[in-house]
């Protein structure tokens, strides 16, 4: 069984982030692939999983999530190749440091060379970034400015702010991170399939759903 694991939605799940777990699981199951979705609560151990999903959260919960993950097996599992999709606060936590209320350099998990400082103002609005020539669309709502070290950005910003107004998120061979929060995977079926393809190590058959029409509509809106 292939396990998809949503980490601490009680702490990191502010903006419909549960949609990401739902979308990857449904798109796998509808192709006949074996997949199960598990949710890790505050008092649970982090289980073995093929893909971990991290959402966004407020300052206090973000700090606690970072502490819980630091003490768990999460870091070693990711270093061993487990896949991760992280959005918003999740993106910041995987990096070296981030800032939360009362602390400008709170230690992250250090899995990625990314430093997040406080942005000049909050970035709130429709968001689009170009990833390998394709648009990734969504909504951003965060106060961070993320600077990347020796790691590739996920995409270049087309609308909104992302990391710094130019680049958005980051990616490694098993980690994808973006400031498009919440149901970004639900809105971008092609991107979900990129992740699934990597997790299962196979080429995927096309799969049509109403999310295709939603994606086309959002692409039109952000391109205006």
């Amino acid at each position, binding site marked *: 069984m292939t396990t998809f694991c949503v980490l601490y939605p009680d702490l990191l*799940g502010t903006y*419909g982030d549960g949609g990401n777990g739902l979308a990857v699981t449904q798109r796998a199951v509808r192709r006949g692939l074996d997949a199960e979705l598990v949710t890790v609560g*505050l008092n649970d151990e982090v289980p073995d999983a093929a893909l971990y999903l991290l959402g966004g959260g407020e300052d206090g919960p973000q700090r606690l999530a970072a502490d819980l993950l630091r003490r768990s097996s999460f870091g070693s599992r990711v270093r061993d190749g487990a896949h991760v999709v992280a959005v918003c606060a999740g993106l910041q936590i995987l990096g070296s440091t981030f800032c939360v209320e009362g602390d400008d350099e709170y230690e992250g998990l250090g899995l990625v060379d990314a430093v997040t400082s406080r942005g000049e103002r909050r970035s709130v*609005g429709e968001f689009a970034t170009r990833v390998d020539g394709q648009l990734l669309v969504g909504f951003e709502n965060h106060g961070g400015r993320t600077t990347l070290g020796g790691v590739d950005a996920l995409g270049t910003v087309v609308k909104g702010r992302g990391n710094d107004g130019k680049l958005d998120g980051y990616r490694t061979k098993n980690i994808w991170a973006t400031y498009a929060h919440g149901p970004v995977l639900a809105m971008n079926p092609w991107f979900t399939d990129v992740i699934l393809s990597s997790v299962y190590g196979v080429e995927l058959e096309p799969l049509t759903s109403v*999310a295709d029409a939603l994606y086309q509509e959002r692409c039109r809106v952000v391109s205006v």
Partner: protein
Amino acid sequence: MGKSSPVRDQVASAAVRTVNRLSRITRKGSGTVVGGRVGMKIAPDLVSSLARGRTVILVSGTNGKTTTTSMIVAGWGGPVTTNQTGANMPAGHVAALAASKEGRVALEVDEAWLADTLASTRPSVVTLLNLSRDQLDRANEVRHLAERWRKALEAQPDDDLVVVANANDPLVVYAGEVRSNTVWCDVPTSWLADALSCPKCTLAISHVGSAWHCVCGFAKPAHVFTTLGDELIVGGTSVDLELSMPGEFNRSNAAMALSALHCVGVDLDEAVRRINAIQSVVGRFSVRRWHGHVLRLLLAKNPSGFAAMMATLPQDGSDVWVAINARVADGHDPSWLYDVPFEMLRGHRVYCFGDRRLDLAARLDYGQVDFVVVDNDELVPTSKETISLLANYTAFSDWLARSEA
């Protein structure tokens, strides 16, 4: 700006009424906000001067503000100054206060404006219903709102201010616990997804039955004044609550409204009789007709509102209509659709309406709920049954306007 001047305040107040009358006559607006803005330009502290000497009850919270305020108005009996159109920021308060000199005032207050409104109206009672995620693109984060409420209540100098607060919502308790005389209401509160992590220390809150506590010591208040189970008890007295309106959440709203009224000396038996008789509040729960369909209009603006409203639907596999917009008043970000437990609608066919019907349809599809995207309203098959239509804020207004009584 200078101190408040009686003449300037009178001029400002007259301007509010005149501009609002013009706005209504010319049909440029609903005539509640624009005049308020004009008045506050002339006299920035107009809310204070208009509220002075009156008995004010404020109502705030994510869900149930309008309904609870209406219940307070009805339960109080006779004329009460209020802002019934949902204009719940200072301009709307000014409009309501300028329109009527009645000494009894019930105002609903946008969550983000509670601090200002407490300071300007100096209320006798502030009723705090609940806090959950809503319009995050505007209000940012809900824990932050709880923090602002707490600070505002701490800063309020009037010792005789009474806070009537929901004891089952940890975020509300976090705000209300700073006052020594808070009237705690133990009312059913189903949505706890935003209070799983303690507002004080961020560790997990344990919920056992209706009790809850955190290891840091933060817990449900031990002494509650109002208890709502099968029976409603307010201050040791049983109250005969038999609402005409549906929904467990409306029983909770009524219990809080009655507790607030009790604090200003209203007789509970008379108040509850008047509240029981309410059939609908600004169109909410009303039955309307549209193109041969019979629709029951249900307002649901956010995840907790949707969860509460879906729990009232008949379990008969009937069609359900849902309309979603993401305009300014709704919040531009419909990500919250993924926080709504739409899986509750499995077994129904859901017709998707509104500007963001594709977002809704995708959400339902991932949740394995049968759906139809309605691109042409006129092609929806009619049925004799009454259809429940759940709509968020501007979508609800649209449907109220396009349907008939």
